[in-house]
């Protein structure tokens, strides 16, 4: 009877041990071995977007053909009332988590206001959503620091659907003029 009890205990211990190895130890080792340990603060689907193409006028995606990707945007007040730095269009739904701007250089002036905002367009260039709540004044924004954007609290405004793209849009409140030249960097985190 005592021997039977011991055997039964042994069977239970073996079963529990195998379950621990199979369901706890192996998955933990898997995470370690697959490089996830480097991404403790980021989910497996987080992307950082900082390369785009700057176009003057309406930000139609077709306008990107033949233009080159850069990590620095450019806006010159003498050229057009509107321009945009466009990020690559995703094929699946993305949610914007954070967005920041760094004014790398600024020279010249413009008599009116010049603003920068983060917006979502469809691929034909129609505005769908405005992502930030407070526009950045490109003539007064600091030039030596990353500036975080205040994002909309509406989930809809932070969501990029297939067939849409994200763009930083530069706007003058008047006609082209002056000689303001601004070169910003961008960092947008999406999941």
């Amino acid at each position, binding site marked *: 009877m005592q021997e*039977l009890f011991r055997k*039964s205990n042994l*069977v*239970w211990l*073996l*079963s529990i041990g*195998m*379950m621990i190895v*199979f*369901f706890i130890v*192996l*998955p933990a*080792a*898997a995470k370690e*071995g*697959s*490089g*996830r340990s480097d*991404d403790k603060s*980021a989910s*497996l*689907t*987080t*992307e950082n977007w900082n*390369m785009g*193409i700057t176009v003057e006028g309406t930000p139609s*995606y*077709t306008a*990107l*053909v*033949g*233009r*080159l*990707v*850069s990590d620095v945007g450019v806006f010159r007040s003498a050229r057009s009332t509107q321009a945009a730095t*466009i990020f*690559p*269009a*995703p*094929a699946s739904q993305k949610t914007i988590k954070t967005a920041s701007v760094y004014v790398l250089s600024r020279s010249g002036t413009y008599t009116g206001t010049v603003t920068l905002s983060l917006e979502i367009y469809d*691929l*034909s260039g129609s505005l769908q959503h405005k992502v930030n709540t407070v526009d950045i004044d490109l003539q007064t924004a600091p030039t030596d620091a990353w500036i975080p954007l205040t994002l909309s609290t509406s989930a809809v405004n932070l969501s990029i659907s*297939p*067939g849409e793209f994200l763009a930083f849009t530069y706007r003058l409140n008047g006609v082209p003029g002056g000689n303001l030249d601004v070169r910003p960097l961008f960092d947008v985190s999406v999941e």
Partner: protein
Amino acid sequence: MIKRITKILLVALLVAMLTAPFQAQASPENAPEYGRRQYLRTGFILVSSSKYGGVAGKGASLAVQFRSDRHNDVYFVFPAVSGKLYVRQASYYLLSRSGAYSGNANLSLEVYDFNGSLQRTLSVTKVNLQTTPTQTWSTISLPESIDDCQLQPGEVPAFHLALDDGVGGNLDVRSIFEVATEPSTLTFLKFFFPLVVRK
């Protein structure tokens, strides 16, 4: 009675563990995740030759224009990486299409070495650029087995736009692309993964 239930549980557990590696091959879309997913959307445009040295001095692009009166072959080549990767999903979006071409104008996803030699074709079927829908994201059909979707160090994935009947006509296609990749993992973990890690 308890002893019998214990035995049954133990046998079931052993069977589950032993059969895990022999489960059906996971397809690229639903195979377990091995690491952080990376999306390739920016690439370089090569004309006529897919030799990777051709990207030197070129700027990166987000979109490609393919005109049937200009070139037989145009490649949208993604940047090379040093580690082994798996292609998990590939999509394309035709921004616009105009004109016509008398032969076939096809799109396929291929893998090349740095010398421009074709290593394998990832797209199961070629996309007919004259009939595929425009202004919507479409998915490329990938091989059934995730093992057939590997990218080895020294290889680059590329979308290949090709004519089969020589240059001519006035077909004009403008397209953008996305390829989702994930890094490789240790073999023994992959062996056990089917049961322990799912997205």
